[in-house]
């Protein structure tokens, strides 16, 4: 959720702006850059992958790979193909992987599903976004993409619900994206 990352980042930045003479320059820069930067603020579309790594800060997570060319992309990056309907912290950044919960958490047995297209083989896959439960928010790699998202009154296709149900604890930690299988064609 890029704009949410921005939210925290900007809170800090705006505090710095208010407390320095650079405020005017920063404001001017925001005005000049505003039109171009605003469209980037909505849902995360990835952290620009390798390009971002060149200027990585200590807060960035190291790039990952599935090691499988049939499963391309970086599971710690919001733009990873399986995350087309995800909303939450990426377990791959929290000690788990794209399909495994971090140590000491419990995977929710029920969840919502999305259909995402694998760019490597062009197939659509049904993805299960199982939450990992029992610890407080992981706080790393927040990612919110809503391409298949429907309102909460269609729960199986909604990513606002805490799916830590049927688990020992309802505390939400992070989300995975598990392949269930190939999606059937509509026709």
């Amino acid at each position: 959720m890029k704009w949410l990352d921005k939210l925290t980042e900007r809170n800090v930045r705006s505090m710095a702006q208010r407390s320095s003479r650079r405020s005017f320059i920063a404001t001017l820069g925001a005005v000049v850059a505003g039109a171009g930067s605003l469209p980037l603020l909505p849902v995360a579309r990835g952290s620009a992958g390798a390009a971002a790594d060149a200027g990585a800060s200590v807060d960035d997570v190291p790039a990952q790979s599935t090691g499988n060319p049939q499963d391309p992309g970086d599971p710690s990056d919001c733009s990873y193909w399986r995350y087309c309907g995800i909303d939450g912290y990426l377990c791959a950044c929290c000690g788990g992987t794209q399909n495994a919960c971090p140590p000491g958490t419990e995977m929710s047995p029920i969840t919502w599903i999305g259909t995402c297209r694998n760019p490597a083989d062009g197939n659509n896959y049904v993805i299960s976004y199982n939450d990992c439960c029992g610890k407080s928010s992981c706080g790393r790699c927040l990612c919110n993409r809503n391409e298949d998202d429907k309102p909460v009154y269609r729960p199986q296709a909604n990513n606002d619900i805490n799916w830590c149900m049927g688990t020992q604890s309802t505390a939400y930690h992070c989300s995975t994206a598990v392949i269930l299988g190939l999606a059937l064609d509509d026709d």
Partner: protein
Amino acid sequence: MNGSKPRQCARTSSIKQVETAQRLAGRSFGVSGVLFWGKLRASIKQVETAQRLAGRSFGVSGVLFRGKLRASIRWLAVLLAGLGGAAPLQAELPPEPIPNVQRIETPYPASYAVVHDFAFGSLIDSSFSLVDTETRRFIGMLSAGQFATVNYALGRQEFYVGETIHSRGTRGERQDVVAVYDFANLALVAEIDLPPRRANTVINKANSGVTADERFLLVWNQNPGTSVTVIDLDRREIASEVPTPGCALVYPDDDRGFIMLCGNGALLSVKLDEAGQAASVESSDPFNNIDADPLSEKASKINGVWHFVTYQGKVQPVDASGDEPVVGARWWLTDADQRAQNWRPAGWHGTAGHNSGLLWVGMTPAGYPGSHKDPAPEIWLFDAEAKSRLDSFTLRVPALSIGASGHDEPRLLVVNIEGQLDIYDGKSGAYLRTIGALGETPYMVHSLP
């Protein structure tokens, strides 16, 4: 702070020792700031020495702090007297009471609003901040557990916070509860235990509601089967649980009932009797094509009519003012040109309403499938009755969620993507002021009309 509480006599005694130490000091000092701080430190040392000599040790207790404070105030008075010549000292400041907790004047003015911090980085510790959008003052806070909701009853002057907690933080027994707080003190006055199945979702105003007569609080359950718990606010206990399979959320009608949105595209209308039991449960014909262009749940009520917007930009009015809900004719927020540019509704909660007939909708350009929760850089203002756009405003900072105050001249309240609350003139869109530092991830604003 020190855990031990000195008795009153000890406190009085300590203050007297401080005063005695100051009188004994009885020296004259210059006026430089550096020297002043040196004297202040010296005076504190004298106080501490006097206390040690008296065989009493208060450590860092409030008593010693008070003693130091008094000492420093006296030195400051001496210093100012020196600077101002022979100006006589006024009577000394009176002792102040401890404990001392602020109260809030009630009823609240229309400028008060509640901002909900979802605390995404620490979901088990969310909060609601009460602020004055006119003065920018922070009035107080309600603390809450995870996936909390807030409602209020003006007639009762109470807040109702729905929350889920575990007995040991992130583990232990799940406890769902409605905590009742009074307006005047923001103090807990009651707790109503719920069955452990209240819906846990990212902030959604429609997860709970209060009936129009303020008799019942409605809590939507999802675990994952759905139902509504009806709470009698007179007795502060559960009156009933209404099974509502396949239907979600609660939108109070103007009677003693509510409507829900269902997964088959229909509405469910529930009417309650005097005891809070379901007197009738009626389903409409399906009207909401969820696959093609679903109704967003983030609706606003204007004069008894709920105004939903669809993902693509139509308004779906549902008149909830009569005996049964009436699904009205849809109308577009956008004209053909605007649709060609893909202007669409956006925001976490991107609608706000006012009973003068005004409807505000957060809008984003270059919309796409999945843009329905994006921040909204613009607000479009509509006459809901005439179904026409009155104006549009570009926001200082894009909006996550919006609300409208109950003023006759409404204020538009905007929780922006920097986590601040921006206040605009609701009609002209003129920016008025900003309130910041409202938590980690403020997501929602509730006006208190």
